[in-house]
């Protein structure tokens, strides 16, 4: 088993004003995460505010990220899976996938100690 960082880009959600639909979307998310917790694949994660700072160099700090809209990192997860492909399969269950979120899966590198 290996750990993977899943970077979630874009706050994929139903394009609707219906509070009920939004509520359902949130419940789908919770349900998905609880499944990952129960199966032992979940390690950690948080969702992120859209505001932030970008440090470009020692003199330039901008008060927002460079990327916008669907490029924005909406949150992250740390998952446990046997390989990247298996982690990708898990991520396919994410309720934000049908609404345009994209996911970058990166294995957490373990430096070999001598």
């Amino acid at each position, binding site marked *: 088993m290996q750990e993977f960082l899943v970077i979630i880009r874009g706050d994929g959600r139903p394009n609707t004003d219906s509070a009920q639909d939004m509520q359902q979307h949130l*419940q789908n998310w*919770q349900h998905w995460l*609880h499944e990952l*917790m129960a199966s032992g694949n*979940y390690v*950690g994660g948080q*969702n992120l505010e859209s505001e932030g700072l970008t440090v470009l160099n020692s003199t330039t700090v901008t008060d927002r990220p460079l990327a916008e809209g669907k490029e924005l990192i909406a*949150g992250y997860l740390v998952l446990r899976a046997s390989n990247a492909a298996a982690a990708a399969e898990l991520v396919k269950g994410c309720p934000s996938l049908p609404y345009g979120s994209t996911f970058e899966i990166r294995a957490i590198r373990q430096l070999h100690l001598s």
Partner: protein
Amino acid sequence: MTTSPNIHQAVNHLFRQASGKMVAVLVKIFGAENYTLVEDVVQDALLSGLETWKLNGIPDNPEAWLFRVARNKAIDIIRRKKHQYNIDFSSPEQLSPSTEYTLASTFDQYWQDQAIRDDFLGMMFACCHPDISPENQVTFILKSLCGFSTREVARAFLTSEDTISKRLYRTKEFFRTNDIRPVIPPPAQLSGRLDAVLNSLYLLFNEGYSATQHEQLVREDIIAQAIYLCQSLLDHEHTRQPRTSALMALFCFHAARIHSRLQSDGTIIPLSQQDRRQWDKALIASGNEWLNKAASGTALSPFHLEAAIAYEHCIAPGYAATNWKMILAYYDALLQLTKDPVILLNRSVALLEYAGAPAALQSLEVVQSHRQLNRYYLYHAVLGEIYKRMNEKDKAVASFEQARQLTTAQQEQQFLTAKIADT
């Protein structure tokens, strides 16, 4: 909103019940190993309530108010201080408050009525773990689920706060080292574990019912708590067993008589001289209802029989008119279930009334050399009564004397002194 000048008194009862529920839910969230943290959060919530309500009056749903405060404090701790306390997030259930994705929704579920009820029962089962001694079980129940302070528990057991603190510490250590969680046991274990809980409630009730306890308020408080805990078991489908109903019936019948058992100065009034008009008819009626409910199923528990005996006393128009024959039959059935010499002793009293002193004396011959019974003041008090009826004054006085030496309770000593003078 109601504003009460004596807010402490008004919220005392509320605090007792609310704190037990909060303890149960918070133990689930933080784990029994963080019991001190749990107590801190509960205390904080109660204090906030007291402070705020002093100024603004008691809200319409004070319990929900307290739960919301406890919930927010717990969220705060999970968010900001999870590394300060060793909160275990390793199980799937404990993982879900660890992330903002599911924190709020998980906490909303934790504080729903049904979840709180389940946790409260789960905590009862945790307190009555078979590896915790009965006296430590009862001590911890009073402290954690009934909202008693260490001082109040000490008063309830007529012992020092130091002793109680040690008992509480031992139980907390047991929780910590054995990773005890507040859960209702799975069906396969439920029956045996429920017996332990019922026995513990029985002990708790006895503590309140016992005449050795002089403070009427303390006694009534403990009795009310035992009834409340038993009601919680009856409210839940898994623990609503016939023997739970039987225990409740027993509690009702005994509780109906508490006000007629002592004079205002604390002197004991024997059953034969109690004013039966003082007995609480409403409690006797609900005892009846529970006893009827207890009659379903096939298992006969000692609680059924003890309730039946108490019922016979409650419905008898007078002491002499008591159905001693029926009571004797129930004692015989009890002896079939358990070989407890104390039951044999109680049976001899029924026999004394039904068949006379010689028969009663003979029935006690088998336990004559029983060591524990010989140190039990009631054994000698009963012997005294039997000898008195047989007109054997010397033996009667000697037995009452011995009984008086064996009890430390002042009321009982007074009672026995009066007996000696009367013999």
